[in-house]
């Protein structure tokens, strides 16, 4: 079993109780990898202290990244090596002894406050290309994408063939690839589609932004996403991915159900588990 969590903590400092929440999130989900966006060195260091009891063999270690995503990994994972990176993402090879190795791509894409959607789509396409390149290098495609893409599951960069090519159906994804304009493009399965709308088990997104007079307003956004290559589908279950709204009794949502920055962050955390 492998478990990873991702949380955009919105720049909260360790004095604002965020370290206690992330430590509790790790315990609640039994996460092997914790990936954080908008996270300071002070928070990651305090988190390390929170996870590693003084004077005892440490359980977690900081995985140095060349990107702006901060990562902690369980010391028991024999090797976590960054094999591709950019300011917005890090791609890791996780060697796990007798268990199948994994390729974990963590991302915090440039913000919609800084660049427009078309620019972000091109960046996500670059990210997708880096993933394909890393899969060639390590000769397998057991890849998990995890992070804040600042794009919707239906955005061109996420759904399009030259992008992540994430589809909403496991059955479609299990076809593994699809030709477009006489070239083959590999699929990702994007389970985040299941969270859209009020019929979903959890909130209708991971991030909420009111309309503010715009003609097009979705209110709820699924910028924080997990995508998996079809090779991991045999290890995927219906509850493998979730949006976390409560941590150890602390409700991360306000009265209206949207992420409450006071109690947590303006994003909800997400969690992925695969049975391998």
């Amino acid at each position, binding site marked *: 079993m492998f478990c990873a969590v991702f949380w955009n903590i919105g720049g909260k400092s*360790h004095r604002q109780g965020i370290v206690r929440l992330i430590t509790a999130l790790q315990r609640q989900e039994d996460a092997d990898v914790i990936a954080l966006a908008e996270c300071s*060195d*002070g928070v*990651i*260091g*305090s988190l*390390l*202290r929170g996870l*590693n*009891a*003084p*004077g*005892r*063999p*440490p359980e*977690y*270690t*900081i*995985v*140095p990244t060349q990107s702006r995503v901060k990562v902690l990994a369980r*010391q028991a994972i024999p090797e976590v090596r960054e094999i591709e990176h950019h300011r917005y993402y890090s791609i890791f090879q996780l060697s796990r002894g007798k268990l199948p190795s994994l390729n974990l791509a963590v991302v915090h894409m440039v913000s919609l406050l800084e660049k427009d959607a078309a620019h972000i789509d091109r960046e996500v396409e670059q990210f997708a290309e880096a993933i394909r390149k890393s899969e060639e290098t390590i000769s397998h495609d057991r890849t998990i994408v995890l992070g804040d893409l600042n794009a919707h599951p239906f955005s061109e960069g996420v759904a399009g063939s030259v992008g992540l090519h994430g589809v909403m159906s496991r059955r479609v994804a299990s076809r593994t690839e699809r030709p477009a304009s006489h070239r083959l493009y590999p699929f990702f399965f994007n389970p985040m589609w299941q969270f859209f709308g009020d019929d979903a088990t959890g909130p209708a997104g991971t991030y909420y932004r009111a309309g503010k007079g715009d003609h097009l307003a979705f209110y709820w956004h699924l910028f924080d996403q997990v995508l998996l290559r079809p090779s991991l589908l045999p290890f995927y279950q219906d509850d493998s991915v979730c949006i976390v709204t409560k941590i150890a009794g602390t409700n991360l949502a306000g009265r209206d159900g949207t992420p409450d920055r006071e109690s947590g962050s303006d994003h909800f955390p997400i969690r992925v588990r695969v049975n391998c």
Partner: protein
Amino acid sequence: MATSIPDLWPPDIFTTPAPTPIAVLRRQGEALGAHTQNLVHGEVETTTNPDGKSFTHTLYLSAPLLRYRRPLLNVDQTQPQAYPAIVWEADLTRPPNDRWSREVANEEELQACIQEFLNEPRVKNILRSVINMSNDVAPAE
């Protein structure tokens, strides 16, 4: 009918009689991590020399919050057997025109030698400094 081909490797090559220099160095790296909650720890890397039968094991001092990773101590395994070995300090702590170095005949001597090195005042100064700076980034509650 296909004949089965036996495993011809001598079984006694798969047993390790005593902790190798890698194991001793790695243990020190982990122990440093235990003292500092992994804010500072040691990592071991091995390089194979061109002859293919001698190796250098390097203990790196790593402080991820400072983006700091430097070689601290080396152990040359000059033949395929683990011992004797030569222990020598990396440039990080090396005084001008001098280099601390010892030859060790076995695991016990290696441990004594590493302890001697880690207790050198110039080495303690570096270690203290890296630990203090990491503590400054993430103060204990």
